[in-house]
């Protein structure tokens, strides 16, 4: 039986997001058909952050990650180039790499033994003479690769879509600025210890929380209490002294400009924390109601031991399932995800009305990208913009169509 949401899904996603009035169809956070469409329209198209160059310095180093739900291996090959390959044997699809990361001379499928080199070439087929009579053309059966791989300041990205524009175009000046904020700490590298954590929440609810300054004083009250920060002080900072510039990037990238709280999102699934923290969070979707969050912490190679220690201490105290801040976020997203699945309230939208119409769009000739200036920094405009862009990804029939039709923040 097709739900109302599924029927809407087959028409237009733009109608699920009322940017002007701040109303959002709750089905986008719970509907299975919409989720399947997201995997096709967003995760199979967008440039996705894979890992940082510092994680795979030597030939044979690999890091396993996902593109949507697709398992991929990011490998430093013999010629030092970076390959992103689907972690699925070309014979019958079995996984060829079973570790999160490591070093290997090749990838051997444990089912029938097809063996691939670091560039994904099929170099070994048991029974090539006896069983295949040398008729199998190995050059046709290498591991499938991502369509494009590129890196910006050490951050490796890949896309599954041949027709995707360059990484530079996808990021735009705004997206590059967001990465620069982290890359500018120096010669940065990932500190060993990548935290992986699953939540029963829709990935977009995690995404939109990164710039949600409304919840801080409430959700995180016990952490603030433990640290001796009065809630009134927190709310004063976010509410009374509440003017800021918002970066609204093309394709849904957003960032706030609150000093001490640079929280950026490269759409769809890379969150960058800078200033107070030095971290990247990646959110792999696992279904409409499940997400796996990965936390990468970064430090300048040349920082003093004391500085490194301080960065690590700050990240550990706040991030991940044990972080005193993030301990309390996940449960909320899980409850919201449950609420999004309500059939009794199927036609009752979520409220995204905070700060509508506030601030002036500045074309950004001074900084190189548009800014929403002079409005509140505690606002739902970040999320309204992300979801408006989400709908454009979902409605576009191809990358060229998205390029042509997507909203330009400078003229909204």
């Amino acid at each position, binding site marked *: 039986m097709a739900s109302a949401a599924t029927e809407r899904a087959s028409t237009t996603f733009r109608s699920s997001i009322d940017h002007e009035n701040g109303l959002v169809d709750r089905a986008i956070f719970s509907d299975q058909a919409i989720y399947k469409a997201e995997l096709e329209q967003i995760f199979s198209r967008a440039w996705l952050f894979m890992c940082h160059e510092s994680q795979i310095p030597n030939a044979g180093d690999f890091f396993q990650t996902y593109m949507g739900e697709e398992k991929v291996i990011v490998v430093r090959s013999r010629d030092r180039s970076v390959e992103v390959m689907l972690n699925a044997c070309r014979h019958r699809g079995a996984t060829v790499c079973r570790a999160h990361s*490591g070093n290997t001379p090749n990838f051997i499928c444990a089912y029938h033994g097809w063996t691939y080199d670091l560039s994904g070439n099929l170099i070994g087929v048991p029974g090539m003479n006896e069983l295949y009579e040398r008729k199998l053309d190995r050059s046709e059966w290498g591991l499938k690769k991502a369509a494009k791989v590129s890196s910006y300041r050490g951050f490796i990205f890949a896309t599954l879509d041949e027709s995707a524009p360059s990484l530079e175009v996808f990021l735009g000046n705004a997206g590059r600025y967001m990465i620069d904020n982290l890359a500018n700490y120096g010669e940065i590298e990932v500190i060993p210890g990548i935290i992986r954590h699953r939540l029963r929440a829709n990935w977009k609810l995690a995404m939109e929380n990164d710039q949600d300054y409304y919840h801080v004083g409430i*959700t995180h009250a016990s952490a603030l209490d433990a640290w001796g920060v009065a809630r009134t002080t927190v709310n004063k900072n976010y509410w009374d002294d509440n003017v800021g510039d918002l970066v609204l990037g093309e394709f849904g990238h957003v960032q706030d400009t609150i000093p001490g709280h640079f929280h950026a999102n490269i759409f769809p699934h890379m969150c960058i924390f800078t200033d107070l923290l030095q971290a990247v969070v990646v959110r792999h979707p696992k279904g409409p109601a499940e997400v796996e969050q990965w936390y990468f912490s970064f430090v300048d190679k040349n920082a003093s031991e004391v500085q490194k220690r301080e960065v690590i201490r700050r990240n550990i105290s706040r991030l991940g399932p044990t972080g005193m801040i993030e301990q309390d976020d996940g449960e909320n997203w*899980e409850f919201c995800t449950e609420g999004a699945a309500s059939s009794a309230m199927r036609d009752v939208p979520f409220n995204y009305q905070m700060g509508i119409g506030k601030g002036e769009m500045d074309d950004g000739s001074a900084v190189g990208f548009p800014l929403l200036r002079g409005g509140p920094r505690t606002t739902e405009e970040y999320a309204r913009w992300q979801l408006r862009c989400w709908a454009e990804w979902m409605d576009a029939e191809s990358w060229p169509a998205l390029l042509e039709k997507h909203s330009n923040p400078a003229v909204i």
Partner: protein
Amino acid sequence: MFLNAELCHEVEQFLYMEAALLDEHRYTEWFELFTEDCHYWMPVRQTRLARQEDAEFSQQGEIAFFDEGRAELEKRVRKLESPYAWGQSPAPRTRHMCTNVRIAEVHDDEITVNCNFLFYRCSLEVEEDYFVGRREDVLRKVDQGFRIARRTILLDQTVITAKNMNHFF
């Protein structure tokens, strides 16, 4: 190494008493069991290839789930006891179990104890989490029994499947 049964018994009883404090939410009393110079550490684990298991865990000084001295531990206790600790409202039912207790080393007043643990947490209606792993504790003998000088928690999961880990192990 000669181990007397009485010491083994005392150590086990101490670990059971400590677990009971956690399950009864008596966090301040639990915290008092730690020495001034204590270190409470849970490194991050990842899945590695065979023969690369020595690189499973993050090292001291790298990223960890917990890397706490007494001051950091105390903040976590204060957080759990805050009236705004939504995760404790209502408090989950928890059960800390430790088994396979083995004394690995006795050195002056310090005793190194290994055990396996199973920590069960049942929240709200039907939310259940199991945390399983191995612990290495260094206990220090004091007049009234023992104090915990070091605790290393080695979880068996490489991907955490609980919504958070806001409790102690």
